[in-house]
């Protein structure tokens, strides 16, 4: 039974499944980080406000939504 599970995991299909799970977990951790980045950019902008503050906020949100898109894409195509 156990040896069957191990041999299934070590097969090409099993390795791809493990890779898929690993990629999605890393992406979810990265998603949390990108959310923290939005918060930190807003704190930085609050600390020192310039006419570039809007651009920084936009880039932080754009990055966050790109990561969301990547997680959805990974769930769909992997």
């Amino acid at each position, binding site marked *: 039974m156990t040896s069957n599970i191990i041999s299934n995991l070590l097969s090409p299909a099993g390795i791809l499944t493990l*890779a898929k799970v690993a990629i999605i977990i890393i992406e979810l951790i*990265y998603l949390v980080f990108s959310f923290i*980045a939005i918060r930190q*950019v807003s704190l930085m902008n609050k600390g*020192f*406000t310039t006419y*570039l503050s809007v651009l920084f906020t936009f880039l932080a949100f754009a*990055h966050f939504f790109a990561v969301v898109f990547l997680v959805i894409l990974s769930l769909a195509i*992997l």
Partner: protein
Amino acid sequence: MSFSILKSFVESPDHACFDGEDKDEKILYVLRKHLVTNVDWIFVSFLLFITPLLVSRFVALFGPSTFPHIPANYLSVIIIFWYLFAFIYVFESFLVWFFNVYIITDKRIVDMDFHGLLYRNISQAPIRNIEDVTYNISGALKVIFNYGDVLIQTAGEKVEFEFEEVGNPSKVVDILSDLVSKLKGHSE
């Protein structure tokens, strides 16, 4: 719109304010680390952006059969993830440089420190509390590009401020000394 705010030595910046600024307070100078201090992260960013291209050239050169086959969908996801990571590295490094500012107003000096995305420290001291200002330039790069550390001794709670690796430190010392003597001259 000018991009003067992106310089490491900004005089009377337009449309800039900081948290806790008084209504009658005026920002005279915004200082940052010299542009040369950004070379290390710019070099790493360049490597991050060209790595996928180098790897694909390497694989093409030695033949795809030499390397384990990665399905196209997995490869696409990995490459998108790589470039997003490269982007946030550049963005974060730039923000840390941009927001690590030393602000000189007509009332006080403010030292804003951001390290990475998770640490920040903001300290300030009134100009009238400044007792001594010195600077040091040590190292070949600092001598060539004229940047160094300005040390400010104050009488307040935080006794020493350090403006690290700012451009033209002798001018900064001169500005601070003038402000102190002007302020103390008025009060005496």
